[in-house]
């Protein structure tokens, strides 16, 4: 497999975000959680969780299994609304936002789901093109970009394949391509290295670092404590439903 983090597409890296983080003025946080509680029935998944994520930052969210990492990410990528507290994404209080506004916010977020969530009946090309398709773009408008992105992640030869025929690593790269194809301002990845071997995991992490370098805000949840300290970025730890700065 080609090293996807070191191989630029023919027409340059995808231009994700407006400008590189270093050149971007620090303004409103992209994500702000304040005293957030989340319960599933009686069981609390989060309690009194607070954090802010600045534009252009690279954030690692660590913690033991069941610490609430996925719940926190689901709040950030707007799959859920909090039981209590404030969740603000791109300056919008998600509890008060109307459904059309939530849909618009979701389009600015690229999500790499832990279980990929690829659509088995669609080809690799169609899976990756999905975010552009729901924006109403005509195929001729995005065909070239999608092909180039698939070349970039080393899947040009699997463009017509369907997900059930792909390996775990290939599925992961399709999921990442789908997350970044619409040039989102925020990329959220839930355990992106959980289903791949260590070598592939390292390559994927280098890819996320590169995406952040070209401007995207990246939030990665991982239970692999060894991944985060090896690269620049902010580390947040979830413990007992609360967010703690640093890896502890």
């Amino acid at each position, binding site marked *: 497999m080609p090293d996807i983090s070191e191989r630029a597409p023919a027409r340059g890296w995808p231009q994700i975000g407006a400008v590189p983080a270093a050149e971007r003025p620090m303004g409103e946080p992209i994500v702000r959680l304040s005293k957030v509680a989340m319960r599933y029935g009686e069981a609390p998944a989060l309690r009194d969780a607070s954090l802010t994520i600045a534009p252009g930052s690279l954030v690692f969210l660590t913690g033991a299994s069941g610490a609430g990492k996925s719940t926190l990410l689901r709040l950030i990528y707007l799959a859920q609304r909090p039981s209590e507290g404030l969740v603000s994404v791109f300056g919008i209080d998600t509890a008060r936002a109307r*459904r059309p506004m939530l849909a618009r916010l979701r389009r600015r977020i690229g999500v790499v789901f832990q279980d990929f969530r690829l659509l088995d009946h669609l080809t690799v090309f169609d899976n990756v093109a999905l975010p552009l398709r*729901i924006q109403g773009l005509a195929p001729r408008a995005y065909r070239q970009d999608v092909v180039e992105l698939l070349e970039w992640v080393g899947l040009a030869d699997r*463009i017509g394949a369907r997900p059930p025929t792909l390996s775990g690593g290939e599925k992961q790269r399709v999921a990442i391509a789908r997350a970044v194809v619409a040039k989102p301002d925020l990329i959220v990845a839930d355990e992106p290295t959980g289903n791949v071997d260590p070598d592939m995991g390292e390559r994927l992490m280098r890819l996320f670092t590169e995406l952040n370098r070209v401007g995207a805000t990246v939030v990665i949840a991982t239970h692999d404590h060894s991944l985060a300290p090896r690269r620049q970025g902010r580390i947040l730890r979830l413990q007992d439903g609360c967010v703690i700065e640093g890896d502890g």
Partner: protein
Amino acid sequence: MARRGERRRVPRGTAILPREQRDAPLIVVMAILCFLACLAGVGARIAYAQAERWTDSLKGSMTARVITAPASDSAGMARRAAEAAGALAGVIDARVIDRQEAARLLEPWFGAGALPDDLPVPVLIAIDIDPAAGVSAQDVGAALERVGVPAVVDDHARWSQDVRRVADLARALAFGVLALLAAAAGAAIAFAARAGFHARRDVVEVLHLIGARDDFIAAEFERRFLAIGVRAGALGAVMAGGSVYALAYAARQPEARAWLLPQAAISPVDWAILLAAPLLAGLVAMTTARAAVMSALRKLA
């Protein structure tokens, strides 16, 4: 390298919602409902048309039965009655129904040439009138009285009212059946749309989470169910058209007996009903699916 069976070239965009094999039973159920709805619609049209035909033919005619005594000159009375009736304004023609014509009218019951010679046949006058002239049975009766011919004049009003009442009831029943079938089709589609939504819930959730608007997701289901509705409607309409054609063929009668059975020829109105069925079924399927899916989507965050 592309693996065997995969295409290296960029594939064409496919439908976002996967095709479901479970759509087939839904199409069958909907096609049956559409078939019954088309039959109800065409049946209502035939009942109405036949009632119109019967009442129209009765509206322009009266029958006078001359009351004769055993020793009276029944032929002369009949002639005088026909002349008196024919002289009335608004009467187009008045003629005596002689024994030969009466025998021909009674043929279906007695058989050809089997009317006994000694069987008394009533002396009847057939009177054709202009329905717009407003000639009543009383007017004709009075005219016959004036020339000394007692008669009972029947303007078929009671028969005509009975036919009209039965036809109106048949039409109301047909519309009622149509409404029930539409409701049943709507309920079946709503149920199927919800089942389809839940069967494709993973797809819907992914679309929802990557920013698809509710309208976009609903439109995907609308397109799918529009296609299902149109296919089912077309199937039902073809079956109904075939049935009506078979019925029309079986019920066709020679002109002399055509008044007896409804003449179920396929009319332009029937064609309109049959052609509208796929469109209406598609429309019902589309709107019902949209309502069901929007309701289910509102339960997502």
